[in-house]
């Protein structure tokens, strides 16, 4: 099993201004699951895109089964036997589940597409993933998890020599992840080489044989899975000590501090049930719960992004009515949404414009800030948050994920809010930037801002929060103190539904 089916040597890819990859070597054996690791911007996705013909390489060569190849486009890569599931779901929402699996290689009969065959085989494939669904319905009809499974099914069915899974588990629940792992093991046993990319360290240890670590476009090294501990792994990924994360201190809240935000019995039958939440001045409250537990819906309601049907919200003791986000901003509430790309960053506008937006929208367009004021504001936060950019006129969309998150954070810090709601601010960004954002969050608490922090990573919530609100099934289960809580406690409460 030691034969390399894939060898990539000295891969170099140049983007305007940066070397995305610089002489990276990578190899994959038949019947192996090989994890590819690195922070955001380390070059993992670029390496994958090079292998699938999306990006052209400037130097280096790729050997597949000993023969040199140069994939020109994804179609060509598939023909060569390289099949990929990309990070974002790359399927067509208007086509049926079955068709998404087979489009481009539909079975034909008498010169026509054989629809019966397609639907039959698709059903079989999906049932392999224990999904008993109507495969003739449009893909958009189904949840993200099923869509993700569909794209995995497509990649698996192509019968490739190499399967690439780029963050396939981000929208899957624990059971689905286990299912995926068992399929991966089957494929591995059949001799396929699998490249697996994920941010979840546990999953790497659960499933892979070897791992390759990249940092800033350079190769750090390739290791067997038992060669490195998690701590060593993280250190290698980040390239510096992780002490900074472990040195964070919880916000100190005066025992007699006033309640800054009070939400009483808010809800909307179709979204969340009767939730009451209060946050003191300078306090950090974490929302823990699984995807779909109602944490995002609660946050959106507190920001007026969705209408509150019943219940009252008070800021600093004053009752407010939230019809739209604008009302919340007027009431000094700020909100960093979960989906940074869709709801947060305005990619084609400059960093300056992105940062000044909330301040300006609060003033209304008739009272504009001068260009000078905007630039000063932007530069102040670029410096304060350490946003990596040559100047404030760079397009925000061209920044890395972590820097984009900092820009959004700057947008809200500039609006000097009393309450800051952060929905998954650290998702999909690298560990260094994660620590930075946690530190900023806590600093703001120190300045008297009340923060609501939502995250799927419970260790992060426990580390930062004064109090933790645990949610399940669109309702609040209980509240616990941050200091005396462990991940096991939270999981137990979520599983059992009571304190």
């Amino acid at each position, binding site marked *: 099993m030691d034969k390399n089916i894939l060898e990539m040597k000295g891969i170099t890819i140049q983007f305007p201004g940066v070397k995305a990859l610089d002489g990276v070597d990578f190899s994959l054996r038949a019947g192996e699951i090989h994890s590819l690791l690195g922070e955001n911007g380390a070059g993992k996705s670029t390496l994958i895109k090079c292998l*699938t013909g*999306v990006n052209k390489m400037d130097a280096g060569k790729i050997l597949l089964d000993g023969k040199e190849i140069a994939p020109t*486009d*994804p*179609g*060509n*890569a*598939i*023909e060569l036997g390289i099949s*990929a599931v*990309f990070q974002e*779901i*790359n*399927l*067509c*929402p*208007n*086509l049926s589940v079955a*068709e998404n699996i087979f*489009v*481009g290689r*539909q079975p*034909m009969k008498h010169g*026509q*597409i054989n629809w*019966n065959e397609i*639907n*039959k085989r698709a*059903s079989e494939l999906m049932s392999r993933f224990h999904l*008993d*669904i*109507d495969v*003739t*319905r*449009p893909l*958009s*009809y*189904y*949840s993200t998890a099923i869509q993700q499974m569909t794209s995995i099914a*497509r990649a698996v069915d192509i019968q490739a020599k190499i399967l690439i899974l780029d963050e396939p588990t981000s929208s899957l629940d624990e059971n689905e992840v286990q299912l995926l792992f068992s399929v991966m093991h089957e494929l591995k046993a059949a001799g396929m080489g699998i490249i697996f990319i994920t941010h979840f360290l546990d999953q790497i240890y659960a499933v892979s044989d070897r791992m390759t670590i990249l940092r800033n476009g350079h190769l750090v090294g390739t290791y067997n899975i038992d060669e490195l501990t998690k701590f060593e792994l993280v250190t290698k990924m980040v390239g510096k000590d992780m002490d900074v994360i472990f040195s964070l201190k919880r916000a100190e809240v005066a025992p007699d501090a006033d309640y800054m935000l009070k939400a009483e019995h808010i809800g909307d039958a179709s979204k969340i049930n009767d939730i009451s939440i209060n946050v003191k001045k300078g306090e950090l409250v974490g929302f823990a719960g699984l995807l779909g537990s109602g944490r995002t819906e609660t946050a959106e309601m507190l920001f007026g992004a969705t209408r509150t049907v019943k219940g009252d919200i008070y800021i600093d003791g004053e009752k407010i009515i939230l019809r739209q986000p604008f009302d919340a901003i007027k009431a000094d509430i700020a909100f960093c949404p979960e989906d940074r790309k869709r709801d947060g960053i305005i990619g084609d506008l400059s960093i300056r414009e992105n940062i000044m937006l909330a301040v300006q929208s609060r003033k209304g367009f008739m009272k504009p800030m001068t260009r000078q004021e905007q630039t000063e504001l932007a530069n102040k936060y670029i410096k304060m948050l350490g946003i990596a950019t040559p100047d404030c006129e760079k397009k925000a969309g061209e920044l890395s994920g972590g820097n984009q998150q900092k820009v959004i954070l700057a947008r809200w810090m500039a609006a000097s809010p009393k309450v800051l709601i952060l929905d998954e601010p650290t998702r999909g960004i690298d560990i260094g930037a994660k620590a930075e954002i946690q530190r900023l969050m806590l600093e703001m608490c120190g300045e008297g801002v009340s923060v609501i922090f939502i995250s799927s990573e419970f260790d992060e919530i426990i580390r930062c929060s004064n109090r933790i609100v645990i949610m399940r099934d669109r309702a609040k289960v209980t509240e616990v103190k941050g200091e005396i809580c462990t991940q096991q406690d939270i999981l137990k409460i979520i599983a059992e539904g009571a304190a």
Partner: protein
Amino acid sequence: MSNKQNLFTRLTNPKYIMVYATIGIFFIIYALGGILYGDKGFLTVRTFVNLFIDNAYFGISAVGMTMVLITGGIDLSVGAVASLTGMFIAYGTSVLNLHPLTCIAAALVMGVGLGLLMGWVIHYLNVPAFITTLTGMFLARGVCSLISRESIDIHHPMIDALAGWKIYLMKYADGRWIKIKPIAFINFNVILFLVMIIIGAFILQRTRFGRNIYAIGGNEQSAALMGLPVGRTKILVYGFNGLCSVLAGISYALYVKSGWNLSLQGGELEVITCAVIGGTLLTGGVGYMAGTLFGVLLKSVIPALITFNGNLLSWWGKIATGLLLLLFICIQRFVVTTSDRKQK
């Protein structure tokens, strides 16, 4: 669930809702016409068949337009290309004394070539389809005017024969076949229209090329990442639409037996309107030939109603079409939002 789906579940798939809406509203309006003007002969076979005869050229063009719209593109050049085809035939036969088939061959090269070229510019130079095809429209119209600014009549035995060719609808009575009264017939244009609809439906539903069209309209980037030939498909779709425009131009030439540089002005928007009220989404990814067929009928039944009324200015037809468009857009909107909700 069973793999072999029964007809009922297949037909109740929510993706067909818009097509059903088109068909339903067509029959409602048709029935309304029957109630109002039934005594004047609105319900006769002749009136119904005339809907086809008077709008076949729009229908033929709508076949190609539907495909272009499904890819998420648009083609504004169809009216001008059809008009140019008419000019080719008229000028070629009447002034240059060429055989009509030569003219048609030249028109086909022109139409398909322009379509392919526009597709290439749209895909490889990344110029918006709206702008590219608008330029194509200006070009075709300009060439029309260069050929002649006067309307040219077409006189050629072959064209006359083709235009005059008709199949009378018969009924069996008293032991023999007789023509139905009032006399109704279908002509070459109607057959061409129906054949194009069938070809279009076959391409869309039964070939990989057709399914690639839907995939590109659903999400072009995904289609590329799934390894589908995005560029080739897009270019061919515009080429096919060029073919449809030429056929529509031939059909229009047969209908009016002349060529005029300003004929079919604004025709592209009529064709797009047909497709939209037939349930095709301008955002791409959704559309069916059956819907387009009824979209053409629905759009043409309104002028028919106004003619039967006799007192209304023909301009009410435009307003009615606008309102119909509004109605369909609202239905589409409703369907989309409800299916979005189902997902959650």
